């Protein structure tokens, strides 16, 4: 087990490095750089912009250097924890990410819990009662969830919540709590706003997980060990939960790792639509304005999270599944 973990950790290091390179390249892929993008922003505010001046600035920011030099500078500073300054925000990248991390995690975890809380029981039900009307119903519903583009759902829900529930628009807090210190009232306010994004984020995931749970459980239900357990005189419900569900859950565990970072990345669109204070919209604008230190840091963070998450779920899987643990 120990050797297994060490082996996995060692393997992640080159992966993370490769990812950092690819992230950097992705950011550099679009033509131009932050400053070319910045000109039009300034012009829209009525500023008079001098192209020659911009070119000169490019050198001050080190944007004129070859990409590999820029990368080396960036990664060597990142390694010592210095993420640099965001061009767009003109603030330290670490501060910016830090400000949004809490809400990002709250939102991701909330939607993940919602996904699991809804999809696992339904998946189990659908598998146990395969081809029953209930199975068809849930299948239908979950496919609808899969089919609705989530930005559309977000937009419609937001409008609906505003016009019928009188809720404040977008964001995770009402105006009066937006900047207030944490209190019970603020937590309640957060919960009152959290459900829309959590639902929107969960809907697609629910559909997927129901299908996976159903398929996995259907694979397990005809197994002999289920018959054995039944032959022992176990109650059907307990039996299903203790044996096939337990085995069918293993693949789920293996998804935890990249589900969370995946939610962060997947929530970008929803967060933009719903104006959520998460890293998603920040990443999007950073990519669009080619704010490379900010975008690079978020990308790297997400990738590292994914890799670490995968690592954790591999270990978790090993812990849960003795077949892996002892082989």
């Amino acid at each position, binding site marked *: 087990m120990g050797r297994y973990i060490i082996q996995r950790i060692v393997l992640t290091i080159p992966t993370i490095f490769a990812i950092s390179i690819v992230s950097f390249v992705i950011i550099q892929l679009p033509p131009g750089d932050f400053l070319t993008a910045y000109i039009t922003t300034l012009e829209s505010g009525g500023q008079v912009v001098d192209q020659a001046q911009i070119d000169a600035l490019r050198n001050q920011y080190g944007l004129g250097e070859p990409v590999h030099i820029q990368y080396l500078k960036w990664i060597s500073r990142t390694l010592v924890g210095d993420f640099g300054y965001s061009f767009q925000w003109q603030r330290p990248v670490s501060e910016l990410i830090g400000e949004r991390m809490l809400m990002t995690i709250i939102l991701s975890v909330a939607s993940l819990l919602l996904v699991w809380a809804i999809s696992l029981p339904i998946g189990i039900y659908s598998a146990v009662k395969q081809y029953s009307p209930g199975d068809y119903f849930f299948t239908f519903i979950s496919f609808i969830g899969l089919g*609705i583009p989530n930005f559309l759902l977000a937009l419609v829900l937001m409008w609906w919540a505003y016009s019928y529930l009188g809720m404040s628009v977008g964001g995770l807090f009402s105006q009066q709590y937006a900047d207030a210190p944490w209190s019970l009232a603020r937590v309640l306010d957060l919960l009152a706003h959290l459900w829309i994004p959590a639902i929107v984020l969960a809907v697609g995931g629910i559909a997927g997980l129901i299908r996976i749970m159903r398929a996995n459980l*259907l694979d397990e239900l005809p197994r002999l060990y289920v018959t054995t357990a039944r032959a022992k005189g176990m109650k059907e419900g307990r039996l299903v939960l203790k044996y096939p569900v337990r085995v069918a859950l293993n*693949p789920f565990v293996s998804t935890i790792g990249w589900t969370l970072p995946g939610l962060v990345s997947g929530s970008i669109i929803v967060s933009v639509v719903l104006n959520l204070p998460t890293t998603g919209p920040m990443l999007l604008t950073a990519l669009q304005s080619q704010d490379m230190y900010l975008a690079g840091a978020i990308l790297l963070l997400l990738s590292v999270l994914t890799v670490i998450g995968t690592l954790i779920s591999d270990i978790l899987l090993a812990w849960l599944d003795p077949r892996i643990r002892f082989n």
Partner: protein
Amino acid sequence: MLRRILGRGQPVAAGVPAATAEPTQPLETETEKHDYAVASEWELMWYKFKRHRLALICGVVVLLLYVVAAFVEFIAPYNPEAQNPAAAYQAPTRVHFVDAEGNFHLQPFVYGTTSQRNPDTFELEFVEDTSVIHPLQLFVRGDSYRMWGLFDANLHLFGVEDPNVRLYLLGADRQGRDMFSRIVHGTRISMSIGLVGVVMSFVIGIVVGGISGYFGGTVDLVVQRIIEFIRSMPTIPLWLGLAAALPADWSILQIYFAITVILSLIGWTGLAQVVRGRALALREEDFIMAARLSGTSRTRIIVRHMVPSFMSHIIAALTLAVPEMIIAETALSFLGLGLRYPAISWGVLLQEAQNLRSIALAPWLLAPGAMVVIAVLALNFFGDGLRDAADPYKR
């Protein structure tokens, strides 16, 4: 979004080899032996598939969608780009059976409308002109088009004869364009982008997954690392970067293909995993072993033996991946990175509709969303049925 695609792929892959490894209900496998002893795998699949009624219905829906995609110019009553300043945001035209005098008509008809701008809200307000009845007719001459770039025509499946009366079955958009015609036209790109994208994923996935699964060992390890690496990349940024990097002087067609390539670049990993799982399981099976022992070349083994043996499974996986691609295309369009005007896809139409005005006052502009749902639903059920049918170890 793609995480969802991947998410669906992996556990299925994880489940498959185990399921193939040991048939647990001898009764059933043996019951099938006789009946299907002479049936090819395809016949067998069809035999099982057609009993899955919902999947069959959905298969018909999918087929219909592709028929529509093939004949968009004929099925759409109007040129999807024909703007009309007098019909901006016009609500869906009411199809009547009973006229203003209360007489019933067997043939449905519509009334012409006149519009006037509300001086306070600047909206167009529409009034039906009930003096003239315009019956809906089949095979109407209307806007001319060039069918498949081959010949000119102006015949439309249905419509209203009077060119001054416009039929807006699903309302009109901000430019007074017919939403129904636009959605019909969007079918072509939306239904094909998934297919083309999936075929690309499929080719990459089957080659890489097959190689990985067939050779195993170091090759497998390396390929698995690469797949893990690609999966660790956050998808949206990857799309953003790649889509933003597309040369801007590319034509719509080129962008279309580029976008499918981008989508499939990430999508192939899921398929590769499925193929690999199947290949790994098959590797150990007798007939592959026999072929190997008899000195058949590796390529030949892969092409002649392994590919057909999991083809049915792959086909099912493909059908399930198409809707993911459709959704992914809409997401890219939403970010302004997918297809753009003048291309018409459901994603592009939805992107045009994602504003307050449409949602609050012109909800019919969200109809492309319903089409996405219908297509995704149909494809999913269809694919589910195919998957059930393809799996020889399930009832």
